[in-house]
C-alpha cells in the first residue's frame, strides 16, 4: 500500500525531506507508519511528544487505519497568528 508522507516546517529540517513515498502493509495504522518513519529518520523521535499528524486536511490519531494513496502530514505544533 502506497502512502505519501509530507514533512512541514522544521520537521523538514529534522528529516532533510519534504515528501517521501512509503510502502506499508495493508491495514497499517498511523502508529505503525510513524514507527517506520522514526527508524528511517531517527531525529523524529526527539519530537515524539510534539508531533501532529494529519491525513489530507484532517487531524488523525495513531490508530487511524491508512488507505491506499493517503497523504499523511507530520508537523510540529502550529504557531499561526
Amino acid at each position: 500500500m502506497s502512502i505519501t508522507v509530507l514533512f512541514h516546517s522544521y520537521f523538514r529540517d529534522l528529516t532533510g525531506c519534504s515528501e517521501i513515498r512509503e510502502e506499508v502493509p495493508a491495514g497499517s495504522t498511523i502508529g505503525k507508519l510513524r514507527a517506520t518513519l522514526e527508524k528511517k529518520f531517527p531525529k523524529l523521535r526527539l519530537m515524539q511528544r510534539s508531533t501532529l499528524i494529519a491525513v489530507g486536511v484532517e487531524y488523525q490519531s495513531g490508530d487511524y487505519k491508512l488507505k491506499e494513496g493517503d497523504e499523511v502530514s507530520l508537523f510540529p505544533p502550529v504557531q499561526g497568528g
Partner: protein
Amino acid sequence: MKRWLRIQTEPIDEGALLPARSISRGIGAVIYFLGVVREQEAEKTITALEYEAFEKMAVHQFEKIFELIAAKWPIESVRVVHRIGAVRVNEPSLWVEVTAPHRGEAFAACQFLIDEMKKVVPIWKRPVA
C-alpha cells in the same frame, strides 16, 4: 454567516480592506484584530518572522472554525487575512474582522477564532535574525 479568507504573501493592506466591508442595518459592533510581529521572540531580538502554511489544510481548518462560530454566535461576517513568507517586525501577520449585532458576541467570536487558529491551523513561523 459571510466568510472570507486570504492566505497571502503580500503585505496586509488595512486601508484596502476597510472599504470592502459591508454591514447590514442590524449590525452594532465591528471588531478588528491585528497580530503584529514583535521584536522579541522567545527572548531573542529578531528582524522578521518567516511564516509557512500547509495551505490546503489551513484553509480547511479555518473553514471548520468559521462553522463553529456560525453555530455558536449570531455573527454576520468574518474576514481573515493571514500573511505567509517573511513578515518584518512591526508589520501585521494576521488581520481579523468580525461584525455582529452586539459587541459581546463579536468579542467572543473574535477571540475564539484566534485561540482556535493557534491550536489547529497548520501555520508555522521561524525567527529571522
